Structures are given as C-alpha cells and as structure tokens.
C-alpha cells in the first residue's frame, strides 16, 4: 500500500502521458520507411495508404481501425465516401496491415480503443479523400481536355458536359500526379452521407455467416493448439506429467511455453481433450493466498488511511463545516471479465523466414512486434492479417495469445491455430479492476454541492498496460530494458504519480467548488486491463448514486439537483435537461419506478432514465431512455446501436457481473456462473441524439457508465434500499 501527495500540476502532467485510455502519445512504431501494405491491382490508382481506385472503378478503403462491432468500418468509410463523393455501400473495406500511416493519432501506434476512432480520424480521413477527389478531377481535366472548373463529381463518376465518367477511367493519369495537401472540405450543408442513416457496411456478411473472424481462418497443414495455464495468474510451471495427454489420438506435440503447457493436435477436439489430461505442477506465488474477502479487507484498511491526495481545488475543510448536510458513503465494484463471445484465438504460419499472423486485435502493430520478439523474424518479414473481432471491449488489446502462438509455432515448426476455451477466457483473463470508493459530500441550503471528497482504492491498469504493450511496440529493445521500464512504471504508479484511468469520472462532471480527490494503490498481482469505459465503469456508480442521495437531502428532484450543479458544464447540463423532459413524459405502470443518472466520458455526454420494478427480490429493468451528445452523429443509427449495446453491457455488470478469488484462483468459469444479460431480461431502449455542429466524439463506451447508477437510483425509489455495491443485490 502506498500513496503520496502529488500536486495538481504533476497530476496533469502524468495525465498527459497516459491520457485517452490506451498508451503513450508519441510514435513508438518508427516504421515509416516501410512500404504501405497495399497490394495494388494492375493499373490502379493508389494515392496513399487508405485508398485504392481500380480501373474498373472499385474503390478500396484500407480501414485503419479495427471492427469489433462499434461500426468503425461504416463510420470511417462514410468519411471517405463523403469527400470522395461515392456511395458508402460501394466501398470495398479492407482491414489495413501494419504501417505507421495507420496509427491512431492519439495513441502513436495502431490501436483501436478509448472511443477515439471517429474523433481522431474525422478531419484526417475526410482530408485524405478530398485530396484524392481533387486529383481525380485534375486527371479527368487532362484526359478529357476540359477545364477542371467545369467538372463535377457524383457517386463515383466525373461529370463532364452532362456525361458520366467513372473515376477508374482516370486511374492511370491520376497515378502520375501529386495530390494536393489541403483540398477544400465539404461544408455541413453539403453532406450527402454524414449524419444520414443507412445500413451498416458489414450487416450483410454478419447476417449470412460469411463475415470472417480469426477463428475462421484455416491454412494448409495447420494444427490446433490448446494451452494449460496456471490457475493462479503469474505462477510458472514447475513440472508436468505429459504421459496421458501424449497418448490421445491426434496429438503431435506437447511443448512448454512461458504461460504454461501447450498441446498441439490434428484436430481442435483432440487438443482440448489432451490439454485436460495434462498433470502440471505450478510454483507457489503470493497471489495464491488471496481471497476476495482479503482483497476487500485490504481495500477497507486503505480507504481510511490519510494519504494519496492527488487533486485539490478550493478549501475542503471549511466547506464541510459550512455545509447544510454532509453525507459519506462507500461503494464497491468487483473484478470483471470482458467475455467477448469469440474467445481469444490466432493463426500463425512461419515459413521461409516469413511469418503470417491472422487475428482480430485492437493492436495489430503490437501483435506484429510480439511475433517478431518471440520468433526472431524481423518486423518487415511479418504480415498481420486483421479479421473481424468477435467482440473487443478492451480485451483484444492484450495479446498474450500472440506470444503463446508464436512460441508454439517456433517450437513445433507447424502452422498453428490457437484457440482459448471460454473457461480460459474467464479464468485466465485480464480484468476490470475491483475498486472501493469513498465519497464524502456537503450540500448547501440552495442545493449546491459545496464540498466533494472522493477516494478510490484498488490496482492500476496503466503499469500493466505498459508491461503488456512495450514488448510488442518495441520488438527490437532487449527484454532487460523493457523489464526495467516496467519496473520503473510500477514504482511510479504505486508511489509518486497517478493512473488517470483509476479515478477518471469520480469528480469532474459537476461544479464542485471545493474538492479533494485521493487514490491509494493496493495491488494483489491480479492481471488488469481496460474494460469498456475503464474507470468510468465504476466511478460513475459511486458519483451518481451519491448525487441522488444529496438531491434527496437537498429536497430536490434528481434532474433539478443535477442541473443546479452543472452550470459550468453546458453540454452535460443540456443532456440532463433533455433527459429530464423525457423523464417527465414517462408514465411508469404501477409498481415501476424511475431512476436517473448522467455522466461524461471520452468527451461524450450521456444521461439515462431507467424504468425498473422489483418483484420477489428480483430487479427488472423494463425501459431505458438515453440522451446522448456526441457532436455530429456521423451515422445516427450506429450511435443508437452503441447506446443500446453499452446499456446491455452495463446491465450485465449492474445485475450479474462478479468474479471472485479463492486461493488466488478465479472461481467462475463459463456463462452459468458468469451470466450475461439475455433477451428475456433486456429492456426496451429509446435513444435521443442531441443535434450538434461540433466535431464527433466517441460512442463505443459512453453509453455504459450511467446505467448502473440509474438502475440503483430506481431501486431506491422502488424499495427505499440504497445499493452501494455492484452487482446490485437487494437485502
């Protein structure tokens, strides 16, 4: 346990280094001299890494971000289509290979996460496409002997004297020209596709079983691998009795790898049987003595310690003395697994000094780096073939399965498909950190929150992210240096600086004139990772249930109270106001009650009203009204889908999600004891999108944080019970 005073300045400085939810804001890939991984069709126009126009007028879009369901191929494709002036449905979307040109500008590497894609690519990809359209017009002017100013474009054709000429016709001439740097962008009034609803570009494939995920890849000679890992994270193999497993039909290899023991067989089913027949012994590690009760006790001790202040504003002590009412409460959130429906998997073929990796990942550049580090093959001889992701939610940013498959392929010399079981996924995952939070707040007679003192105890994601990502992002740097950097970051985040993702959302949303935020790091060596909406997934629960309690103390309604305390946050204030108007119109049937919550994260504002009943001790959510301001909604229907999905994901956490440790081992294993919300428990959802002129902000995560407190506040209205522990359980 540790915690040290850090000034506000240092806090902001640290936030700058680690902001945004993924990793470091500078380029780590350093591979810009490599050719772009675009395979040109004969005679095609390839102006940059993102677009290829073939002579038969097909337009390929090399999508720099990964599609995990958030609709990024449609969203980014729409930006390209808008400025290139083509129908988005006519785009051939290709998942980009690895190249610095595809970096996420916020992360400095090729990563998808932090609800960032539309925000960071909104101007960039439109500019790329506008420049390409300009060069096609230039080529058309030359080929047709026309004045460029007399030419127009429409849906993939140049219009000259009323005649249509497909773009592809000018590919050869365009290829000889240099694109302008900054062709003018369309103004909002001229948008044909941005802001309009149309069918997702991947809907057809995903409705006919033809979309290809990592698990669907087969290569000739491929063998199937399964891995036995220590039940306690981090424990190394001491010895293994392989005899029973080796006798199973089809088993070809049993190899020891860094995470445990891998079995390779001709068929997956054989590998699965054999891996269960292994008899391994694991080393004893500290985590092996940890139970959930101990974790909670350690957190409880830390939450009362006078340490760990990371942020102060105003004067907290006099504010409490002068407050009309003061409340103090503690809130608990457990470890959670992401449980994407497609378990971790990859296919790797190493042949003639060349490696081909197929996998659905949120970090293809890091995947390439890991293959390089663990095979010794230079990055330029590795091709990463990204597939659709069968769910991501942050889980597919951690690539231990890529390390495993590389070790297996190197040891066996065979092309390998590695597949994790669901039990592997739940028991050997990287988790949303458990958190204990304490909030003490004071409110004055006018319903203004005058003092807000918030503290969080738990582990930090960021040092683990560095540990997971640096080996892949810096494949040429020796392990000893990486380990030293990771050790340094562990000490830093444990003592002198703060991981923003540990406390984000706990204090920023309201006009608290006097506030104090503290953090105490308590680690139990449980592997941690970004989980949809990261820190906001638990801080919103504490903050928004406390706000509801304060509203009651102040004698004000949930909406009015929040409006009074968001005078300096106009966008959040407006979302609360609009949601409040909808709440007034809701007429819950007898026995149903409404709960309200609002939250800002990833620069998007969301307010939700949950309609809930409690029957025989069971919480049932019937309807959720969700108001979102995400700037320009590039595809409003996908914005709605993301709100719907985030609400369901958040409801799973609010009503069911709970992982427990016994002797350092995760007790849950599959969907019977780690249940996911099902259709018969799912509410109707109505989404209202605020019309906005501002540039787009993310929608993949912000729909999640308000739902747990909105339901908890409705449960209070229904029963008088304040639930301060997740998952929500009635006494």
């Amino acid at each position: 346990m540790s915690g040290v005073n850090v000034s506000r300045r240092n806090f902001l400085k640290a936030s700058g280094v680690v902001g945004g939810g993924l990793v470091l804001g500078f380029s780590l890939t350093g591979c810009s001299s490599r050719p772009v991984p675009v395979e040109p069709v004969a005679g095609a126009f390839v102006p940059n890494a993102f677009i290829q126009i073939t002579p038969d007028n097909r337009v390929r879009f090399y999508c720099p971000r990964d599609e995990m369901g958030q609709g990024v191929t449609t969203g980014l494709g729409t930006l390209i289509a808008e400025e290139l002036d083509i129908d988005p449905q006519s785009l051939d979307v290709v998942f980009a290979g690895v190249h610095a040109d595809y970096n996420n500008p916020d992360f400095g590497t090729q990563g998808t996460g932090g609800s960032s894609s539309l925000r960071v690519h909104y101007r960039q990809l439109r500019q790329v496409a506008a420049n390409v359209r300009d060069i096609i017009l230039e080529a058309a002017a030359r080929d047709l002997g026309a004045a460029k100013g007399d030419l127009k474009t429409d849906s993939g054709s140049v219009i000259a004297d009323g005649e249509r000429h497909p773009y592809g016709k000018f590919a050869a001439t365009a290829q000889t020209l240099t694109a302008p740097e900054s062709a003018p962008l369309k103004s909002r009034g001229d948008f044909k596709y941005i802001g309009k609803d149309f069918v997702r570009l991947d809907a057809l494939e995903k409705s006919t079983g033809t979309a290809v995920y990592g698990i669907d890849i087969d290569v000739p000679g491929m063998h199937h691998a399964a891995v036995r890992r220590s039940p306690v994270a981090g424990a190394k193999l001491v010895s293994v009795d392989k005899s029973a497993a080796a006798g199973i039909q089809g088993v070809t290899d049993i190899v020891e790898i860094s995470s445990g023991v891998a079995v390779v067989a001709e068929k997956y089913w054989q590998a699965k049987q054999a891996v269960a027949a292994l008899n391994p012994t694991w080393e004893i590690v500290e985590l092996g003595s940890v139970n959930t009760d101990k974790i909670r006790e350690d957190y409880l001790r830390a939450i009362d310690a006078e340490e760990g202040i990371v942020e102060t504003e105003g004067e907290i002590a006099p504010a409490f003395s002068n407050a009309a009412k003061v409340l103090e409460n503690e809130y608990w959130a457990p470890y959670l697994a992401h449980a994407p429906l497609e378990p971790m998997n990859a296919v790797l073929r190493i042949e003639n000094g060349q490696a081909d990796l197929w996998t659905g990942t949120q970090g293809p550049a890091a995947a390439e780096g890991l293959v390089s580090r663990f095979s010794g093959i230079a990055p330029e001889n590795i091709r990463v073939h990204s597939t659709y992701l069968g769910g991501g939610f942050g889980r597919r940013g951690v690539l231990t399965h890529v390390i495993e498959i590389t070790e297996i392929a190197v040891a066996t010399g065979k092309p390998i498909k590695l597949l994790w079981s669901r039990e592997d996924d739940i028991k050997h995952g990287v988790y949303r950190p458990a958190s204990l939070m304490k909030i003490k707040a004071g409110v004055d007679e006018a319903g203004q929150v005058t003092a807000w003192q918030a503290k969080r105890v738990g582990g930090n994601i960021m040092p683990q992210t560095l540990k997971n990502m640096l080996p892949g992002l810096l494949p040429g740097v020796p392990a000893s240096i990486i380990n030293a950097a990771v050790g340094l970051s562990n000490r830093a985040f444990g003592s002198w600086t703060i991981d923003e993702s540990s406390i984000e959302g706990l204090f920023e949303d309201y006009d608290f004139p006097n506030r104090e935020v503290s953090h105490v790091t308590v680690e139990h060596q449980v592997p941690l990772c970004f989980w949809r909406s990261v820190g906001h997934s638990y801080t919103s629960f504490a903050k928004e249930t406390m706000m509801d309690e304060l509203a009651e103390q102040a004698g004000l309604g949930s909406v009015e109270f929040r409006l009074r305390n968001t005078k300096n946050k106009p966008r959040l204030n407006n979302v609360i106001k609009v949601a409040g108007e909808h709440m007034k119109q809701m007429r819950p049937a007898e026995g149903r009650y409404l709960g309200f919550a609002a939250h800002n994260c990833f620069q998007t504002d969301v307010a939700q009203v949950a309609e809930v009943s409690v029957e025989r001790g069971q919480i049932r959510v019937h309807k959720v009204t969700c108001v979102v301001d995400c700037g320009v909604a590039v595809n409003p229907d996908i914005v709605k889908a993301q709100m719907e999905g985030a609400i369901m994901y958040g409801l799973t956490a609010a009503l069911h999600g709970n992982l427990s440790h016994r002797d350092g081992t995760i007790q849950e294993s599959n969907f019977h004891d780690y249940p996911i919300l099902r259709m018969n428990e799912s509410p109707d959802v109505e989404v209202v999108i605020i019309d906005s002129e501002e540039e787009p902000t993310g929608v993949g995560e912000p729909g999640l944080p308000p739902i747990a407190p909105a339901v908890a506040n409705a449960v209070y209205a229904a029963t008088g019970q304040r639930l301060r522990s997740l998952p929500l359980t009635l006494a």
Partner: protein
Amino acid sequence: MIEFTLNGQIVRTDDDPNTPLLWVVRDTFKLKGSKFGCGAGLCGACTMHVDGQAVRTCVLPVFRVEGKQITTIEGLGSPDSMHPLQAAWTEQSVPQCGYCQSGQIMSAAALLEDNPSPTEQEVDQAMAGNICRCGCYVRIKRAILSVAENAAVEDNGLAYNAAAVMPEVQS
C-alpha cells in the same frame, strides 16, 4: 464412419464419434458460419437445425446425428438468396460484432417455423438461450417480429421479397 445430411448434401466423416457436431461442421466440412462461444451449450453461438429443431451443437456428439438432417446458417440462405430473417437482420442493421448472429438467426428461424406469429414474450422465451455480448437484443427482437408481421400481412408464408430490403442509402 458417420453419415448425415448437411444443408441437403449427404456427408460422411471418420472423426472421433464424440467430437461435437460444431467442430465436424467447422473443421471437417469447412462451414465457418456457426461459431464457438462457450463449449457448454450456454450461449447459442453454435446453433444449427437438427431435423428442424434448434440445437446447441458444441455439446452434441456427432454420432448422435447419424442419419439426421442438419441445416447451418449457410443452408438457411446466402448473400444472394437470403432467408427473410437474414434480409431483416441486414435491413435493420442488427449485428454489431456479428459473432453470435448466425446462432441468433438459426434460433429465430426455428421459432418462426414452429410459431409464425409469436408474441414478444414468446420471442423472449425462444431466444433466451442465445447470448449477444454486444447487446443487440432490441434489434434482434424487432427484426424477428417484423418478419413475423410481414409474413402475416403477405399471407405468403415466409417468402417475402429480400431484394426489397437490400441496403440502400436513404437521405
């Protein structure tokens, strides 16, 4: 050697008779539309029709389907000739990550075959075995009910015009 009918074709396999049907279909017969999600019959991603019934094939040993009729998502319809449910799924942008959707559609198809005009509660009941981790339930339910309604309106079984609901930009 085990013999069964897969999407109308007679097939034979010498896979271990205890191998779940899912792996035989995916790895031996290379039809990849049916997915692996849990291996315990809990999530429904592997759902196929066995003699017309929706069955979780990740826990169904292949010897149990000797002589039976198996239909997978590939046999239900194709991009060029979609089942009405697939057309509705596409038109209404139901999928997010898409991984569970083959299983969802197979469960929904079995439901409508059995009960062409289900109530919302009957849809909930029939679909409760299929997890969608992205939480597309609002749209899955809406799509099923729209197909049922369409079929009832047309009084034409399930033969509604897939071409009429193909993706199209609406301004």
